[in-house]
Protein backbone atom coordinates (compact mmCIF):
# COMPACT_ATOMS: atom_id res chain seq x y z
CA UNK A 1 0.00 0.00 0.00
CA UNK A 2 1.03 3.60 -0.30
CA UNK A 3 2.45 5.32 2.72
CA UNK A 4 3.59 8.90 3.03
CA UNK A 5 7.23 9.60 3.82
CA UNK A 6 6.51 10.67 7.37
CA UNK A 7 4.16 7.78 8.18
CA UNK A 8 4.74 5.37 11.03
CA UNK A 9 4.10 1.62 11.05
CA UNK A 10 0.87 2.36 12.95
CA UNK A 11 -0.34 4.54 10.07
CA UNK A 12 0.33 1.66 7.69
CA UNK A 13 -1.56 -0.71 10.01
CA UNK A 14 -4.52 1.65 10.05
CA UNK A 15 -4.46 1.82 6.25
CA UNK A 16 -4.49 -1.99 6.14
CA UNK A 17 -7.32 -2.03 8.68
CA UNK A 18 -9.45 0.20 6.47
CA UNK A 19 -9.28 -2.52 3.85
CA UNK A 20 -9.86 -5.28 6.41
CA UNK A 21 -11.67 -4.12 9.59
CA UNK A 22 -11.11 -7.48 11.24
CA UNK A 23 -7.36 -6.81 11.54
CA UNK A 24 -6.57 -6.74 15.25
CA UNK A 25 -3.91 -4.54 16.79
CA UNK A 26 -3.70 -2.31 19.86
CA UNK A 27 -3.20 1.44 19.79
CA UNK A 28 -4.12 4.33 22.01
CA UNK A 29 -1.88 7.34 22.56
CA UNK A 30 0.00 7.43 19.23
CA UNK A 31 3.02 9.03 20.88
CA UNK A 32 4.76 6.22 22.78
CA UNK A 33 3.24 6.98 26.17
CA UNK A 34 0.68 4.21 26.65
CA UNK A 35 2.86 1.32 25.51
CA UNK A 36 -0.07 -0.56 23.96
CA UNK A 37 1.15 -0.83 20.35
CA UNK A 38 4.23 -2.99 20.93
CA UNK A 39 4.90 -5.48 18.12
CA UNK A 40 7.84 -6.98 16.21
CA UNK A 41 8.84 -5.20 13.03
CA UNK A 42 11.25 -7.13 10.78
CA UNK A 43 11.95 -9.35 13.78
CA UNK A 44 12.75 -6.45 16.10
CA UNK A 45 10.63 -5.20 19.00
CA UNK A 46 9.26 -1.69 18.59
CA UNK A 47 6.29 0.58 19.18
CA UNK A 48 4.29 0.83 15.97
CA UNK A 49 3.38 4.46 16.64
CA UNK A 50 6.93 5.83 16.57
CA UNK A 51 8.63 3.38 14.20
CA UNK A 52 8.84 4.91 10.72
CA UNK A 53 7.19 2.80 8.06
CA UNK A 54 9.88 3.53 5.52
CA UNK A 55 13.55 3.17 6.20
CA UNK A 56 16.45 3.06 3.79
CA UNK A 57 17.87 -0.09 5.37
CA UNK A 58 14.58 -2.01 5.20
CA UNK A 59 12.72 -3.77 2.41
CA UNK A 60 9.45 -2.25 1.28
CA UNK A 61 7.59 -5.38 2.37
CA UNK A 62 7.32 -5.14 6.14
CA UNK A 63 6.98 -8.24 8.26
CA UNK A 64 4.89 -7.51 11.36
CA UNK A 65 4.45 -10.04 14.14
CA UNK A 66 3.05 -10.06 17.66
CA UNK A 67 5.38 -9.82 20.64
CA UNK A 68 7.18 -12.97 21.79
CA UNK A 69 6.71 -14.57 25.18
CA UNK A 70 3.06 -13.62 25.59
CA UNK A 71 0.10 -15.76 24.48
CA UNK A 72 -1.21 -14.52 21.14
CA UNK A 73 -4.93 -13.66 21.15
CA UNK A 74 -5.13 -12.92 17.42
CA UNK A 75 -3.17 -11.08 14.73
CA UNK A 76 -0.89 -8.63 16.54
CA UNK A 77 -2.67 -8.70 19.89
CA UNK A 78 -1.15 -10.59 22.82
CA UNK A 79 -2.34 -11.26 26.35
CA UNK A 80 -0.26 -9.01 28.63
CA UNK A 81 -1.74 -10.54 31.81
CA UNK A 82 1.51 -12.14 33.01
CA UNK A 83 3.35 -8.81 32.93
CA UNK A 84 0.48 -7.04 34.72
CA UNK A 85 0.39 -9.69 37.45
CA UNK A 86 4.14 -9.65 38.00
CA UNK A 87 4.18 -5.85 38.22
CA UNK A 88 1.48 -6.02 40.87
CA UNK A 89 3.54 -8.59 42.81
CA UNK A 90 6.49 -6.21 43.08
CA UNK A 91 4.08 -3.37 43.95
CA UNK A 92 5.33 -1.37 40.97
CA UNK A 93 4.36 2.27 41.36
CA UNK A 94 2.85 4.26 38.55
CA UNK A 95 3.74 7.62 40.11
CA UNK A 96 6.57 8.33 42.53
CA UNK A 97 6.80 11.29 44.89
CA UNK A 98 9.93 13.14 45.91
CA UNK A 99 10.96 16.63 47.08
CA UNK A 100 11.06 17.80 43.47
CA UNK A 101 7.45 16.79 42.96
CA UNK A 102 5.49 13.91 41.48
CA UNK A 103 6.50 11.97 38.44
CA UNK A 104 5.07 9.14 36.35
CA UNK A 105 7.53 6.27 36.32
CA UNK A 106 9.34 5.98 32.98
CA UNK A 107 8.19 2.41 32.34
CA UNK A 108 5.15 2.33 30.07
CA UNK A 109 4.61 -1.42 30.57
CA UNK A 110 4.84 -2.07 26.83
CA UNK A 111 6.41 -5.53 27.19
CA UNK A 112 9.05 -5.00 24.50
CA UNK A 113 11.79 -5.96 26.97
CA UNK A 114 10.03 -9.22 27.89
CA UNK A 115 9.60 -10.07 24.23
CA UNK A 116 13.29 -9.44 23.51
CA UNK A 117 14.57 -11.26 26.61
CA UNK A 118 16.00 -14.71 25.82
CA UNK A 119 15.33 -15.92 29.37
CA UNK A 120 11.68 -14.90 29.25
CA UNK A 121 11.50 -17.04 26.12
CA UNK A 122 12.33 -20.19 28.00
CA UNK A 123 11.01 -19.50 31.49
CA UNK A 124 7.53 -18.12 32.11
CA UNK A 125 8.23 -17.73 35.84
CA UNK A 126 11.15 -15.36 35.36
CA UNK A 127 9.98 -11.96 36.58
CA UNK A 128 11.62 -10.27 33.62
CA UNK A 129 13.35 -6.94 33.01
CA UNK A 130 10.46 -4.45 33.42
CA UNK A 131 9.33 -6.08 36.64
CA UNK A 132 12.80 -6.21 38.19
CA UNK A 133 13.45 -2.58 37.26
CA UNK A 134 10.14 -1.62 38.89
CA UNK A 135 10.89 -3.73 41.96
CA UNK A 136 14.04 -1.75 42.57
CA UNK A 137 11.92 1.04 44.09
CA UNK A 138 10.38 -1.32 46.62
CA UNK A 139 13.28 -3.31 48.04
CA UNK A 140 12.32 -2.11 51.53
CA UNK A 141 9.31 -4.43 51.33
CA UNK A 142 10.26 -7.97 52.44
CA UNK A 143 7.84 -9.63 50.00
CA UNK A 144 9.24 -7.69 47.05
CA UNK A 145 12.82 -8.25 48.18
CA UNK A 146 12.20 -11.96 48.40
CA UNK A 147 10.78 -12.13 44.89
CA UNK A 148 13.46 -9.97 43.35
CA UNK A 149 16.16 -12.01 45.10
CA UNK A 150 14.61 -15.35 44.23
CA UNK A 151 15.84 -17.80 41.60
CA UNK A 152 13.26 -16.39 39.21
CA UNK A 153 14.29 -12.85 40.06
CA UNK A 154 17.59 -11.14 39.26
CA UNK A 155 19.63 -14.36 39.36
CA UNK A 156 17.87 -15.74 36.27
CA UNK A 157 19.17 -12.92 34.05
CA UNK A 158 22.11 -13.78 31.78
CA UNK A 159 23.05 -10.23 30.88
CA UNK A 160 21.94 -10.33 27.24
CA UNK A 161 21.04 -6.60 27.41
CA UNK A 162 18.35 -7.02 24.76
CA UNK A 163 15.91 -5.39 27.19
CA UNK A 164 17.73 -2.06 27.45
CA UNK A 165 18.33 -2.20 23.70
CA UNK A 166 14.62 -2.24 22.84
CA UNK A 167 13.21 -0.16 25.71
CA UNK A 168 11.48 2.96 24.28
CA UNK A 169 11.22 4.67 27.67
CA UNK A 170 14.80 4.91 29.02
CA UNK A 171 14.14 2.52 31.88
CA UNK A 172 17.48 0.72 31.40
CA UNK A 173 16.33 -2.54 32.97
CA UNK A 174 19.65 -4.31 32.39
CA UNK A 175 21.47 -1.75 34.54
CA UNK A 176 18.73 -1.99 37.17
CA UNK A 177 19.23 -5.76 37.37
CA UNK A 178 22.98 -5.35 37.80
CA UNK A 179 22.48 -2.79 40.58
CA UNK A 180 19.96 -5.04 42.28
CA UNK A 181 22.36 -8.00 42.22
CA UNK A 182 25.05 -5.85 43.76
CA UNK A 183 22.67 -4.64 46.47
CA UNK A 184 21.51 -8.16 47.26
CA UNK A 185 25.06 -9.53 47.34
CA UNK A 186 26.21 -6.82 49.72
CA UNK A 187 23.35 -7.53 52.10
CA UNK A 188 23.99 -11.28 51.89
CA UNK A 189 27.66 -10.71 52.73
CA UNK A 190 26.78 -8.36 55.58
CA UNK A 191 24.43 -10.98 57.04
CA UNK A 192 27.12 -13.66 56.83
CA UNK A 193 29.61 -11.43 58.62
CA UNK A 194 27.29 -10.85 61.57
Amino acid sequence: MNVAEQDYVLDALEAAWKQDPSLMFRHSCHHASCGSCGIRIQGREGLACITPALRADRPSVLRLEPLHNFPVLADLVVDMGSLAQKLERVKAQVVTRSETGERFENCIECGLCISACPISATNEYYLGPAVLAAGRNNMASPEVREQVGSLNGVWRCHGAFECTEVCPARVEPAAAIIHLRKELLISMINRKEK
Partner: protein
Amino acid sequence: MKNHHVVVIGAGSTGAAITHDLALRGIQVTLIERFGPAAGTTGHNQAQLHSGARYAVTDPTSARECIEENRILRKLMANTLELNDGLFIALQEEHLEYRKTFLEACAQCNIPTQEISRAQALQMEPRLNPDLLSAIRIPDGVFDPYRFTLSFIATACKNGATFLPFNEVIALDPKRGQVTVHQHDQDKTKIIGCDVIVNAAGPWAPRIAAQAGISLPLEPSAGVMVTIQERLCNMVINLLALPGDGDIIVPQRNTSILGTTSLTVEDPDNIPIPPGHVSRLQELADWMMPGASRIPVRGMMAATRPLIKDSTSEGRLASRTHRCYDHAEDGAAGFFSVIGGKTTTARHMAEKTSDIVCMQLGINVPCKTRTEPLVSHRLWI
Protein backbone atom coordinates in the same frame (compact mmCIF):
# COMPACT_ATOMS: atom_id res chain seq x y z
CA MET B 1 -35.86 -8.16 41.21
CA LYS B 2 -35.46 -8.35 37.46
CA ASN B 3 -31.95 -8.73 36.11
CA HIS B 4 -31.30 -5.79 33.85
CA HIS B 5 -28.56 -5.75 31.25
CA VAL B 6 -27.03 -2.59 29.84
CA VAL B 7 -24.71 -2.48 26.84
CA VAL B 8 -22.27 0.44 26.63
CA ILE B 9 -20.65 1.13 23.27
CA GLY B 10 -17.17 2.68 23.23
CA ALA B 11 -14.32 2.08 25.71
CA GLY B 12 -13.02 5.60 25.90
CA SER B 13 -13.05 7.49 29.20
CA THR B 14 -16.80 8.11 28.95
CA GLY B 15 -17.83 4.53 28.21
CA ALA B 16 -15.40 3.16 30.80
CA ALA B 17 -16.70 5.51 33.50
CA ILE B 18 -20.35 4.69 32.68
CA THR B 19 -19.60 0.96 32.86
CA HIS B 20 -17.96 1.50 36.26
CA ASP B 21 -20.88 3.57 37.55
CA LEU B 22 -23.53 1.07 36.49
CA ALA B 23 -21.55 -1.90 37.82
CA LEU B 24 -21.26 -0.19 41.20
CA ARG B 25 -25.04 0.16 41.26
CA GLY B 26 -25.30 -3.60 40.86
CA ILE B 27 -26.41 -3.55 37.24
CA GLN B 28 -25.14 -6.13 34.76
CA VAL B 29 -23.23 -4.24 32.10
CA THR B 30 -21.25 -5.18 28.99
CA LEU B 31 -18.77 -2.73 27.48
CA ILE B 32 -18.23 -3.19 23.75
CA GLU B 33 -15.32 -1.69 21.83
CA ARG B 34 -14.11 -2.26 18.27
CA PHE B 35 -10.45 -1.92 19.30
CA GLY B 36 -8.87 -1.96 22.76
CA PRO B 37 -9.34 0.58 25.55
CA ALA B 38 -8.93 4.27 24.79
CA ALA B 39 -8.22 3.76 21.08
CA GLY B 40 -10.14 6.90 20.10
CA THR B 41 -10.15 10.47 21.35
CA THR B 42 -9.30 9.63 24.96
CA GLY B 43 -6.11 7.79 24.04
CA HIS B 44 -4.52 10.69 22.28
CA ASN B 45 -5.70 13.66 24.27
CA GLN B 46 -3.29 16.05 25.92
CA ALA B 47 -3.34 14.26 29.27
CA GLN B 48 -4.24 17.37 31.27
CA LEU B 49 -6.25 16.99 34.46
CA HIS B 50 -7.92 20.37 34.12
CA SER B 51 -8.28 22.77 37.00
CA GLY B 52 -10.96 24.39 34.86
CA ALA B 53 -9.09 27.69 34.77
CA ARG B 54 -8.75 27.48 30.99
CA TYR B 55 -12.55 27.57 30.66
CA ALA B 56 -13.40 29.94 33.53
CA VAL B 57 -13.92 32.98 31.30
CA THR B 58 -15.51 31.48 28.17
CA ASP B 59 -17.22 28.34 29.46
CA PRO B 60 -17.89 28.59 33.22
CA THR B 61 -20.21 25.54 33.25
CA SER B 62 -17.40 23.35 32.02
CA ALA B 63 -14.92 25.11 34.32
CA ARG B 64 -17.02 24.31 37.40
CA GLU B 65 -17.37 20.69 36.30
CA CYS B 66 -13.61 20.45 35.81
CA ILE B 67 -12.58 21.76 39.24
CA GLU B 68 -15.12 19.58 40.99
CA GLU B 69 -13.98 16.47 39.16
CA ASN B 70 -10.33 17.44 39.63
CA ARG B 71 -10.91 17.32 43.40
CA ILE B 72 -12.81 14.04 43.24
CA LEU B 73 -10.34 12.24 40.97
CA ARG B 74 -7.43 13.17 43.23
CA LYS B 75 -8.99 10.89 45.82
CA LEU B 76 -10.19 8.13 43.50
CA MET B 77 -6.99 7.58 41.53
CA ALA B 78 -4.35 9.07 43.79
CA ASN B 79 -1.61 6.75 42.58
CA THR B 80 -2.03 7.31 38.85
CA LEU B 81 -2.02 11.11 38.73
CA GLU B 82 0.94 13.44 38.56
CA LEU B 83 -0.12 16.43 40.67
CA ASN B 84 2.37 19.27 40.37
CA ASP B 85 -0.14 22.06 39.66
CA GLY B 86 0.05 24.33 36.62
CA LEU B 87 0.92 27.89 35.68
CA PHE B 88 -0.81 30.45 33.50
CA ILE B 89 1.98 32.70 32.26
CA ALA B 90 1.85 36.30 31.10
CA LEU B 91 4.38 37.06 28.36
CA GLN B 92 3.07 40.41 27.13
CA GLU B 93 0.94 43.39 28.23
CA GLU B 94 -2.29 41.93 26.81
CA HIS B 95 -1.89 38.96 29.09
CA LEU B 96 -1.62 41.24 32.11
CA GLU B 97 -4.79 43.03 30.99
CA TYR B 98 -6.57 39.68 30.77
CA ARG B 99 -5.37 38.70 34.22
CA LYS B 100 -8.09 40.51 36.19
CA THR B 101 -10.91 38.94 34.15
CA PHE B 102 -9.23 35.55 34.47
CA LEU B 103 -8.81 35.75 38.25
CA GLU B 104 -12.38 36.94 38.78
CA ALA B 105 -13.76 34.18 36.58
CA CYS B 106 -11.73 31.54 38.45
CA ALA B 107 -13.03 32.88 41.76
CA GLN B 108 -16.60 32.66 40.45
CA CYS B 109 -16.00 29.04 39.50
CA ASN B 110 -14.39 28.16 42.82
CA ILE B 111 -10.99 27.51 41.25
CA PRO B 112 -8.15 28.37 43.65
CA THR B 113 -5.50 30.67 42.19
CA GLN B 114 -2.21 31.98 43.47
CA GLU B 115 -0.41 34.95 41.91
CA ILE B 116 3.27 34.19 41.33
CA SER B 117 6.01 36.71 40.61
CA ARG B 118 8.35 36.40 37.66
CA ALA B 119 11.21 35.35 39.94
CA GLN B 120 9.16 32.69 41.67
CA ALA B 121 7.87 31.30 38.38
CA LEU B 122 11.38 31.04 36.95
CA GLN B 123 12.52 29.24 40.06
CA MET B 124 9.67 26.74 39.77
CA GLU B 125 10.18 26.30 36.04
CA PRO B 126 13.65 27.41 34.90
CA ARG B 127 12.96 26.69 31.21
CA LEU B 128 10.22 29.34 31.00
CA ASN B 129 10.77 32.35 28.76
CA PRO B 130 12.84 34.76 30.89
CA ASP B 131 10.82 37.68 29.47
CA LEU B 132 7.84 36.36 31.38
CA LEU B 133 6.00 39.10 33.33
CA SER B 134 4.13 37.10 35.95
CA ALA B 135 2.22 33.89 36.46
CA ILE B 136 -0.79 32.37 38.20
CA ARG B 137 -0.67 28.96 39.84
CA ILE B 138 -3.70 26.67 39.55
CA PRO B 139 -4.33 23.01 40.50
CA ASP B 140 -3.80 21.42 37.07
CA GLY B 141 -2.52 17.86 37.02
CA VAL B 142 -1.41 15.23 34.53
CA PHE B 143 -2.91 11.81 33.89
CA ASP B 144 -2.02 8.95 31.59
CA PRO B 145 -5.10 8.64 29.35
CA TYR B 146 -4.70 4.93 28.68
CA ARG B 147 -4.23 4.05 32.33
CA PHE B 148 -7.01 6.47 33.34
CA THR B 149 -9.41 4.49 31.17
CA LEU B 150 -8.00 1.12 32.25
CA SER B 151 -8.56 2.04 35.92
CA PHE B 152 -12.28 2.48 35.33
CA ILE B 153 -12.52 -0.71 33.28
CA ALA B 154 -10.56 -2.72 35.85
CA THR B 155 -12.78 -1.55 38.70
CA ALA B 156 -15.94 -2.19 36.69
CA CYS B 157 -14.84 -5.72 35.83
CA LYS B 158 -13.97 -6.38 39.46
CA ASN B 159 -17.59 -5.44 40.20
CA GLY B 160 -19.01 -7.82 37.66
CA ALA B 161 -18.96 -5.92 34.36
CA THR B 162 -17.91 -7.62 31.12
CA PHE B 163 -15.48 -5.98 28.74
CA LEU B 164 -15.48 -7.12 25.11
CA PRO B 165 -12.66 -5.50 23.12
CA PHE B 166 -12.32 -6.18 19.38
CA ASN B 167 -16.09 -6.52 19.18
CA GLU B 168 -17.44 -4.14 16.55
CA VAL B 169 -21.08 -3.08 16.42
CA ILE B 170 -22.54 -3.92 13.01
CA ALA B 171 -26.24 -3.55 13.77
CA LEU B 172 -28.43 -1.97 16.43
CA ASP B 173 -32.06 -2.70 17.20
CA PRO B 174 -33.12 -0.69 20.26
CA LYS B 175 -36.77 -1.76 19.95
CA ARG B 176 -35.83 -5.46 20.20
CA GLY B 177 -33.02 -4.63 22.66
CA GLN B 178 -30.34 -6.18 20.48
CA VAL B 179 -26.81 -5.21 19.57
CA THR B 180 -25.11 -7.26 16.87
CA VAL B 181 -21.33 -7.37 16.98
CA HIS B 182 -18.66 -8.88 14.80
CA GLN B 183 -16.17 -10.49 17.16
CA HIS B 184 -12.89 -9.91 15.39
CA ASP B 185 -10.96 -12.21 17.70
CA GLN B 186 -13.18 -15.16 16.86
CA ASP B 187 -14.31 -14.09 13.42
CA LYS B 188 -17.97 -14.58 14.21
CA THR B 189 -21.10 -12.53 14.67
CA LYS B 190 -22.96 -12.42 17.95
CA ILE B 191 -26.26 -10.86 18.98
CA ILE B 192 -26.27 -9.39 22.48
CA GLY B 193 -29.61 -8.89 24.15
CA CYS B 194 -30.08 -6.01 26.57
CA ASP B 195 -32.56 -3.61 28.13
CA VAL B 196 -30.67 -0.40 27.53
CA ILE B 197 -28.03 0.66 25.01
CA VAL B 198 -25.70 3.56 25.82
CA ASN B 199 -23.80 5.02 22.89
CA ALA B 200 -20.58 6.51 24.27
CA ALA B 201 -18.54 6.27 21.10
CA GLY B 202 -17.33 9.87 21.09
CA PRO B 203 -16.74 11.15 17.54
CA TRP B 204 -18.12 7.83 16.22
CA ALA B 205 -21.37 8.27 18.17
CA PRO B 206 -23.21 9.58 15.10
CA ARG B 207 -22.12 6.48 13.17
CA ILE B 208 -23.52 4.23 15.91
CA ALA B 209 -26.74 6.22 16.21
CA ALA B 210 -27.14 6.09 12.42
CA GLN B 211 -27.31 2.31 12.67
CA ALA B 212 -30.57 2.87 14.51
CA GLY B 213 -31.63 5.46 11.94
CA ILE B 214 -30.99 8.39 14.29
CA SER B 215 -28.91 11.48 13.64
CA LEU B 216 -26.80 13.11 16.37
CA PRO B 217 -25.78 16.79 16.41
CA LEU B 218 -22.08 16.22 16.80
CA GLU B 219 -19.50 18.48 15.22
CA PRO B 220 -16.11 16.81 15.44
CA SER B 221 -13.24 19.22 15.78
CA ALA B 222 -9.79 17.70 15.66
CA GLY B 223 -6.69 19.05 17.33
CA VAL B 224 -3.09 18.21 16.54
CA MET B 225 -0.53 17.59 19.27
CA VAL B 226 3.22 17.10 19.08
CA THR B 227 5.26 15.20 21.63
CA ILE B 228 8.93 16.16 21.95
CA GLN B 229 11.75 14.10 23.39
CA GLU B 230 12.40 16.17 26.50
CA ARG B 231 10.59 16.92 29.73
CA LEU B 232 10.60 20.71 29.73
CA CYS B 233 8.56 21.28 32.86
CA ASN B 234 7.02 19.58 35.87
CA MET B 235 3.95 21.79 35.96
CA VAL B 236 1.40 22.19 33.18
CA ILE B 237 2.19 25.46 31.39
CA ASN B 238 -0.71 27.51 29.95
CA LEU B 239 -0.72 30.88 28.25
CA LEU B 240 -2.64 33.56 30.13
CA ALA B 241 -5.05 34.45 27.31
CA LEU B 242 -8.36 33.34 25.82
CA PRO B 243 -8.14 29.70 24.70
CA GLY B 244 -6.28 29.46 21.41
CA ASP B 245 -3.84 27.31 19.49
CA GLY B 246 -0.69 25.87 20.98
CA ASP B 247 -1.15 27.44 24.39
CA ILE B 248 -0.57 24.40 26.59
CA ILE B 249 2.51 22.30 27.37
CA VAL B 250 1.95 19.12 29.39
CA PRO B 251 4.81 17.03 30.81
CA GLN B 252 4.53 13.29 30.27
CA ARG B 253 7.36 11.18 31.67
CA ASN B 254 10.51 12.02 29.67
CA THR B 255 8.59 14.04 27.10
CA SER B 256 6.44 17.14 26.70
CA ILE B 257 3.14 17.29 24.82
CA LEU B 258 2.60 20.52 22.90
CA GLY B 259 -0.96 21.33 21.96
CA THR B 260 -3.28 21.97 20.43
CA THR B 261 -4.86 23.24 17.21
CA SER B 262 -8.31 23.08 15.70
CA LEU B 263 -9.43 21.66 12.37
CA THR B 264 -12.82 20.43 11.17
CA VAL B 265 -12.92 16.80 10.16
CA GLU B 266 -15.49 14.78 8.31
CA ASP B 267 -14.26 11.34 9.24
CA PRO B 268 -12.68 10.68 12.65
CA ASP B 269 -10.90 7.65 11.14
CA ASN B 270 -9.10 9.93 8.70
CA ILE B 271 -7.56 12.90 10.42
CA PRO B 272 -4.74 14.49 8.45
CA ILE B 273 -1.91 16.08 10.37
CA PRO B 274 -1.22 19.27 8.45
CA PRO B 275 2.52 20.01 8.70
CA GLY B 276 1.66 23.67 9.20
CA HIS B 277 -0.03 22.74 12.47
CA VAL B 278 3.04 20.92 13.73
CA SER B 279 5.41 23.82 13.02
CA ARG B 280 2.94 26.30 14.50
CA LEU B 281 2.81 24.27 17.71
CA GLN B 282 6.58 24.25 17.90
CA GLU B 283 6.72 27.99 17.31
CA LEU B 284 4.18 28.74 20.02
CA ALA B 285 5.92 26.39 22.43
CA ASP B 286 9.16 28.22 21.73
CA TRP B 287 7.54 31.41 22.92
CA MET B 288 6.56 29.90 26.25
CA MET B 289 9.67 27.75 26.68
CA PRO B 290 12.52 28.84 24.38
CA GLY B 291 14.32 26.00 22.64
CA ALA B 292 11.27 23.74 22.48
CA SER B 293 11.25 23.77 18.68
CA ARG B 294 14.80 22.42 18.50
CA ILE B 295 13.97 19.31 20.49
CA PRO B 296 13.42 16.20 18.32
CA VAL B 297 9.84 15.11 17.81
CA ARG B 298 8.85 11.78 19.32
CA GLY B 299 5.38 11.56 17.80
CA MET B 300 2.45 13.51 16.45
CA MET B 301 -1.18 12.77 17.00
CA ALA B 302 -4.60 14.26 16.36
CA ALA B 303 -7.56 13.75 18.67
CA THR B 304 -11.13 14.59 17.73
CA ARG B 305 -13.10 16.59 20.26
CA PRO B 306 -16.65 15.24 20.19
CA LEU B 307 -18.28 18.66 20.33
CA ILE B 308 -22.01 19.15 20.53
CA LYS B 309 -23.24 21.01 17.48
CA ASP B 310 -24.76 24.18 18.83
CA SER B 311 -25.80 27.05 16.63
CA THR B 312 -24.90 29.56 19.33
CA SER B 313 -21.17 28.88 19.50
CA GLU B 314 -18.48 27.43 17.28
CA GLY B 315 -14.97 26.15 17.18
CA ARG B 316 -12.92 27.21 20.16
CA LEU B 317 -15.88 28.76 21.93
CA ALA B 318 -18.10 25.66 21.71
CA SER B 319 -19.00 24.42 25.16
CA ARG B 320 -17.01 21.52 26.54
CA THR B 321 -19.85 20.28 28.67
CA HIS B 322 -21.75 17.15 27.73
CA ARG B 323 -25.26 16.19 26.73
CA CYS B 324 -27.19 12.95 27.03
CA TYR B 325 -29.80 12.23 24.38
CA ASP B 326 -32.81 10.03 25.14
CA HIS B 327 -33.76 8.49 21.83
CA ALA B 328 -37.26 7.67 23.04
CA GLU B 329 -37.95 10.99 21.32
CA ASP B 330 -36.70 9.36 18.12
CA GLY B 331 -38.87 6.27 18.63
CA ALA B 332 -36.08 4.20 20.19
CA ALA B 333 -36.81 3.98 23.90
CA GLY B 334 -33.97 2.48 25.89
CA PHE B 335 -31.32 3.90 23.56
CA PHE B 336 -29.22 6.81 24.81
CA SER B 337 -26.28 8.70 23.35
CA VAL B 338 -23.87 10.79 25.40
CA ILE B 339 -21.60 13.21 23.59
CA GLY B 340 -19.34 16.12 24.43
CA GLY B 341 -17.31 16.46 27.58
CA LYS B 342 -13.66 16.00 28.47
CA THR B 343 -11.75 13.14 30.03
CA THR B 344 -11.38 15.25 33.19
CA THR B 345 -15.18 15.17 33.59
CA ALA B 346 -15.72 11.55 32.49
CA ARG B 347 -16.91 10.45 35.94
CA HIS B 348 -19.42 13.28 36.08
CA MET B 349 -20.76 12.50 32.60
CA ALA B 350 -21.07 8.90 33.67
CA GLU B 351 -22.99 9.84 36.82
CA LYS B 352 -25.52 11.91 34.89
CA THR B 353 -25.90 9.29 32.17
CA SER B 354 -26.19 6.41 34.64
CA ASP B 355 -28.88 8.32 36.59
CA ILE B 356 -30.89 8.55 33.36
CA VAL B 357 -30.32 4.86 32.58
CA CYS B 358 -31.51 3.88 36.05
CA MET B 359 -34.63 5.99 35.65
CA GLN B 360 -35.32 4.16 32.41
CA LEU B 361 -34.87 0.81 34.14
CA GLY B 362 -37.00 1.88 37.09
CA ILE B 363 -34.10 1.33 39.47
CA ASN B 364 -33.56 3.61 42.41
CA VAL B 365 -29.90 3.17 43.33
CA PRO B 366 -27.77 6.27 43.84
CA CYS B 367 -24.40 6.85 42.23
CA LYS B 368 -21.44 5.65 44.29
CA THR B 369 -18.54 6.72 42.10
CA ARG B 370 -17.74 9.94 43.94
CA THR B 371 -16.19 8.08 46.81
CA GLU B 372 -15.32 4.61 45.54
CA PRO B 373 -11.56 4.43 44.89
CA LEU B 374 -10.44 2.84 41.63
CA VAL B 375 -8.31 -0.29 41.59
CA SER B 376 -4.97 -0.69 39.85
CA HIS B 377 -5.23 -0.22 36.10
CA ARG B 378 -3.29 -3.46 35.65
CA LEU B 379 -6.24 -5.49 36.87
CA TRP B 380 -8.19 -4.89 33.65
CA ILE B 381 -6.69 -7.99 32.08
